């Protein structure tokens, strides 16, 4: 299935709700859970989840429910998670990946990280100022700031609360970050520092704290910092 067909599979509103729900979870999702979240019958959810899997947008895995094994544990359940594969469609055809990789390589070869980070911070700041204008006056200047969460979501970071921190489930620069981790993750940190500064979310700081499979940056409350 090509990229256009894969993305077209999301046109159906039920399928779109199911996909959005599964993609946003930190665990593999069963049919019943997905059906409840999308407000549809299980059989209908199962049908659409399998269509999304055929389109390569979700991965399906079979697992027994946690804590059960051996005879009598029942059949393994079919669980779904977002596929790691990237789908991109551009009309007319455009390719920004090749120049991005080349430019990242130049930064690395020339030792231009400091300049990149300065420019990224500046860019983040103006994006933050613009987003703050849209959000209007905000009462909360800590991690609960909804304006900040919206700005992060709009940039694809998929923020979620993890204890006292705000973590970012998705790396919007994933493919490039895998090729050039220190350059791209350093740029990302600077972008986010600038964004928070521009938003005026004064109680929050961005820190580099990478974990496998997530964005390299975590947002922490300045009050909690030692």
């Amino acid at each position, binding site marked *: 299935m090509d990229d256009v067909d894969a993305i077209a599979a999301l046109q159906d509103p039920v399928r779109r709700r199911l996909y959005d729900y599964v993609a946003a979870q930190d665990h593999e999702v069963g049919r019943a859970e997905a059906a409840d979240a999308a407000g549809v019958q299980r059989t209908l959810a199962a049908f659409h989840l399998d269509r999304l899997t055929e389109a390569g947008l979700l991965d399906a895995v079979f697992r027994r429910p946690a804590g059960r094994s051996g005879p009598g544990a029942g059949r393994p359940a079919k669980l779904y998670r977002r596929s790691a594969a990237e789908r991109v469609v551009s009309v007319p055809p455009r390719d920004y990946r090749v120049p991005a990789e080349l430019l990242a390589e130049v930064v690395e070869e020339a*030792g231009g*990280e*400091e300049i990149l980070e300065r420019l990224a911070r500046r860019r983040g700041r103006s994006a933050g100022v613009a987003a703050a204008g849209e959000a209007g006056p905000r009462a909360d200047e800590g991690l609960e700031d909804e304006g900040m969460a919206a700005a992060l979501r709009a940039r694809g970071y998929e923020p979620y609360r993890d204890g006292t921190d705000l973590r970012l489930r998705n790396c919007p620069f994933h493919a490039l970050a*895998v*090729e050039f*981790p*220190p350059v791209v*993750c*350093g740029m990302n*940190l600077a972008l986010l520092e600038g964004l928070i500064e521009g938003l005026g979310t004064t109680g929050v700081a961005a820190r*580099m*704290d*990478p*974990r*496998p*499979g997530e964005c*390299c940056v975590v947002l922490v409350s300045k009050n909690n910092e030692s």
Partner: protein
Amino acid sequence: MTEHHLAQLNVARLREPLDAPSMAEFLALFEPVNALADSAPGFVWRLTDGDADDATTIRPYGDDVIINMSVWESREALWNFTYRSGHLDVLRRRREWFLRMAEPSIVMWWVPAGRIPSVEEARDRLERVRREGPGPEAFTFREVYDPAGVTVEI
């Protein structure tokens, strides 16, 4: 379990001697980052000089070049420690403490599980990647080979 482990050597040219004030922050990161490596999933071994818990006194490339060498259960294990742990922030700040090297500064290669590679062997591998570019016997994260010598798509 696995028949092969992944060995790596990387070298870094110091901007100033390790006891210079500008290097203090880097030195302070040694202990926590080494501890992070030791407890990382898939960690097997790292080079130490016998006296201290690090390899900073081992300088086969001259006084201004420090090396580190380690062995991991898999490419993912080394990758996750290098780029998906607190170690990444040290890498991000590397220009503060190290000079850029024109030649490749990192090399990895497969060793039979259980065998600890020598510094001499590691130098040969780095020399090879510098001379011939990445290949099954000596490669980098940009171009990874599996133990059978087949390029791995990442």
